[in-house]
């Protein structure tokens, strides 16, 4: 889920109009990802405060007992104002949570912000716990988690069990984001099964499905010529596919993808192998957003028609973007999640 680094790198920039002035977009003073990537678990499931940005990003495709599709998002972002700093209220660490539930008709979103030094939000690793306010993603270890969130209109309480191992994107977890070499550390757990209750305005709904957790951290901004991205995570009959395209201001794209077999073998694909083309647009919140796509990875014989479960999956948060569940037909069938930014 490399592309999401852009979201957080953009966060301070986009938000500066609303008051986040003073956060630079350079890496000055922060640590930067380096090759080869070496991970130490469970420590690396926890925060890396010397990097500017980091997230725990979980999306899930769900179905209720009648077969109705739902989508769910639970995200915790961390950003640091400065590479080092004080404790308590003086801590430079800030946290942001996004939670959403998508039904074929409705899309519920809520956001939380927290200061890092006072215990309102954070991540610990043994046992694992990531939280902001009353939202949490926690369990004895990274493979067995309970997840809760609530907003003014919805809440959920989910249990997750990992049926496979963590997978690494790019070069063993070192994920390049542009031709200029910007990169992040990036790994995923795409094999969670998930079960639990959605509390919606019309009542509680029991759902099951599968979930995909992304972990990523970095300090580097986007290339100056990159305007946004379209990111796909797909769970198909015979494997899983993560792919994104970064849109550049000259109309060209930088793409990247990872094919994950059902037993966890990964193949990384460099720029150009993965292709995604909009097929249809929806008017969402006054913007034209592509909600039907053709997605191809020719080397794997993948040629898919992808469309949004609910075209109105707009995230009206501090940094607005589109994120929602998708349904897949074509050479393979399946479900997945789509994130699109930069369609301002």
């Amino acid at each position, binding site marked *: 889920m490399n592309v999401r680094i852009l979201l957080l790198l953009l966060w301070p920039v986009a938000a500066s109009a609303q008051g986040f002035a003073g956060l630079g977009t350079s890496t000055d003073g922060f640590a930067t990802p380096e090759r080869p990537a070496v991970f130490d678990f469970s420590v690396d499931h926890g925060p890396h405060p010397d990097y500017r940005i980091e997230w725990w990003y979980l999306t899930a495709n769900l179905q209720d007992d009648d077969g109705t599709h739902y989508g769910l998002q639970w995200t915790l972002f961390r950003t640091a104002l400065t590479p080092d700093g004080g404790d308590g*209220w*003086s801590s430079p660490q800030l946290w942001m949570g996004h939670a959403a539930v998508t039904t074929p008709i409705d899309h519920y979103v809520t956001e939380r912000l927290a200061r890092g030094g006072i215990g309102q939000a954070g991540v610990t690793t043994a046992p694992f716990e990531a939280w902001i306010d009353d939202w949490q993603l926690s369990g004895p270890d990274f493979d067995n988690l309970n997840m809760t969130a609530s*907003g003014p209109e919805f809440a959920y309480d989910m249990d997750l069990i990992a049926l496979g191992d963590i997978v690494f994107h790019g070069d063993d977890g070192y994920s390049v984001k542009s031709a200029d070499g910007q990169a992040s550390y990036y790994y995923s757990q795409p094999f969670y099964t998930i079960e639990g209750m959605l509390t919606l305005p019309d009542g509680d709904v029991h759902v099951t499905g599968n979930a995909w957790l992304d972990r990523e951290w970095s300090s580097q901004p986007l290339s100056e010529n990159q305007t946004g991205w379209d990111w796909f995570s797909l769970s198909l009959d015979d494997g899983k596919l993560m792919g994104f395209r970064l849109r550049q201001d000259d109309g060209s794209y930088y793409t990247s993808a990872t094919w994950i077999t059902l037993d966890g073998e990964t193949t990384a694909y460099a720029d150009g192998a993965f292709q995604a083309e909009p097929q249809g647009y929806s008017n969402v919140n006054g913007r034209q957003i592509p909600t039907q796509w053709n997605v191809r990875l020719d080397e794997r014989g993948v040629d898919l028609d992808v469309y949004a479960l609910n075209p109105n999956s707009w995230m009206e948060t501090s940094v607005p973007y589109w994120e929602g569940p998708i349904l897949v037909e074509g050479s393979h069938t399946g479900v997945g999640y789509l994130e699109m930014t930069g369609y301002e």
Partner: protein
Amino acid sequence: MTKAGLQALLSHWLRNPMQLFTLIVGLSLATALWSGVQAVNAEARASYDAAAQTLGEGQLAQITSADGAIPQSDYIRLRRAGWLVSPVVEGRLDGARLIGLDPLTSPSGMAPMGVRDESLSTDVLIGGVLFATQETFDRLKDHDVTRIVTPDAAPNVIITDVGTAQRLLGLESTLSRLLVAPEQPVVQTPISEVTPTLTLRAPQDVSDVGRLTDSFHLNLTAFGLLSFAVGIFIVHGAIGLAFEQRRPVIRTLRALGFPLHRLIALIAIELLVLSLVAGVIGIGLGYIVAAALLPDVAATISGLYGESVSGTLQLRPEWWLSGLMIAVGGTCMAAAASLFQLARMPLLASARPRAWAMQSGKGRLYQAVLAVVLLILAVFLGAVGNGLAAGFGMLAALLIGAALALPVILDRILAFGASRARSVMAEWFWADTRQQLPGLSLALMALLLAMAANVGVSTMVSSFRLTFTGFLDQRLASEFYVYADDADQAAALQTYLTPRVDQVLPIQFANQNVRDLPSEIYGPTAHSTYRENWLFLQATSEAWAQIEAGEGAAINEQLARRADIAIGDEITLAGEPFPVLGIYGDYGNPIGQVIVTETAFNRLFPEIRPLRFGVRMDTANVPALADALRDDFGLEDANMVNQAGIKAFSLSVFDRTFTVTGALNVLTLAVAGFAILMSLLTLATMRLPQLAPVWAQGLTRAQLGRIEIIRAVLLALLTTVLALPLGLALAWTLLAVVNVEAFGWRLPMFLFPMDYARLAIFAVAAAVLAALWPARKLAKTRPSDLLKVFSNER
């Protein structure tokens, strides 16, 4: 053809510029009065909003603790239990009020604009930045923080990040209170399970500012409504006259074959243009009025409530639009009836103006019945109505009912006068006055409402003043008040003061719910100060003695009303039952209050130590003690309050309130006076056929002129006398109904006969001034003009 018709209609104004003038001026004055009051209103309201935003406490629920300190861990516990609360740290820094907020969690709209723009910068969050006006900064010592001058910050208030506030105030890991966001998640653990020692207070509870200003604001709103009513009557009168005067032109045009619908359209357009012109002039006048009044209003509000209102006027769309609305809307309302009549008027109806002939008996009967129905409705609403809407409904029914009843009542009085007349002159005078009544009734209704509004508002403001100064005497019975910043300083202060003064009275209180209503529990020392100065609205015979013996409690009116507590009922304080022995007035306090004696208080709330002290001493020694406290003891000036100073200040504030009220009094009466002038001038030409025979039979023109003035005085006096009970009813409604519904306490009503007499003199003077010109004109009428009435060629 349209052009010819328009020319004919407009030529009337050219031939009669005086009528055009009165029409425009009447409309303009009505608009000016309305928009002037509205401008002051809108400006004051905008300033409240700004002030409320500066502190951001107006509309939010809050979580507080009994001792005013909340451990930071409780804040985290509440957040993790799903409560969207935001921390506030508050204290005094070099005498200024320092407020620390968390920009990430504070509900939107909390800080002033200038602060919000900067609030998420790295500097603000972790560096230490203060926001305040330059004036506030000028009094501040150096604290090694960045200062950002924010002109829209409230006076003497500094806004900063919560962490910075904790550091500057030395309050590590402690918060003062928590703001509760209006929108909360669906899943939450009850507060009582998370932090049992904390109390959730409903939005209005902490907002001592907003609710109090509302009370003054209500005065202005009431005045605005009344001025609207006065204005509508005047507009109605002016338009009605414009129609009547042009009946001959209209008849001629129709007789010449001008289509009726086009005629109506022409007149409608003409009136629209006239009303727009008059509206614009009126708004200009209103602006001048408001600009003249605003400095006083601003001073009144900031003095009364400590809120700052900018003393300059802005051209706010809400009031100039509403000004145009009254001009155009009032014209439409008035013109609709006249146009309807015109549409139904037979072609050959008399070209002679007949509006001022006796109103038909049937129409007057309807009017009387409607008036009675409205007055009964007012009484009904007053007796059984609930809520603010009922209060205002009662006001409306009362005023409209009274206005409609006025011509009927005056007619009866004049008929009675006529029946008692002995001399021929008296008989003619009564009969002629009665005949003129329909023509003058709109102007007299305006005078009635203006006078009633003045009586009502004067009574309300003066009652407010008496009550409030009495209340200050009661609450600020001590000569001198001091405030400590913390418990250690409080103890030192008490030790320092005790040998130097007559008596030190600790003031201590705890926040607690009484019958589920948020309340403050006070525990004053037993002392004659309270026995002598605290007056009960209701009490048992030995209330103070019993309370001092710990046998019971006294509560404020708000608590008694809201929880429906009567003398002898029991309330529970910290688990102990106390019978209620007295109920006292507590004006301006939005929440409940309970008084128990100091010993009982210390037993109930052992953890609370007083930080404030009342000091009984010789008034003359207060300045010396204040100097000593500052120089020897090191107490900040802001921590000392000289009671005499407060009282003098309060009185000066009320004096400014009176200036505003007085100016509005004169203005409304002037407008009503102009309505009378306008009516008399119009009547003057129509009255020549009525007056000429009297003159021919042996009265001089001078006599006729004098009689005109006497008539105006008589009508104004009668109207004034009728306005007095109406004004008192109005004041009573505002004080005893609307105020109770809006604020939970009833203002006692006092009567001010001298004020009423003065107002009556103003009203009569306005009527005399209005009658002077028409009377003089009549006295100077050339005999040949009078003789024209009889001329055969007419």
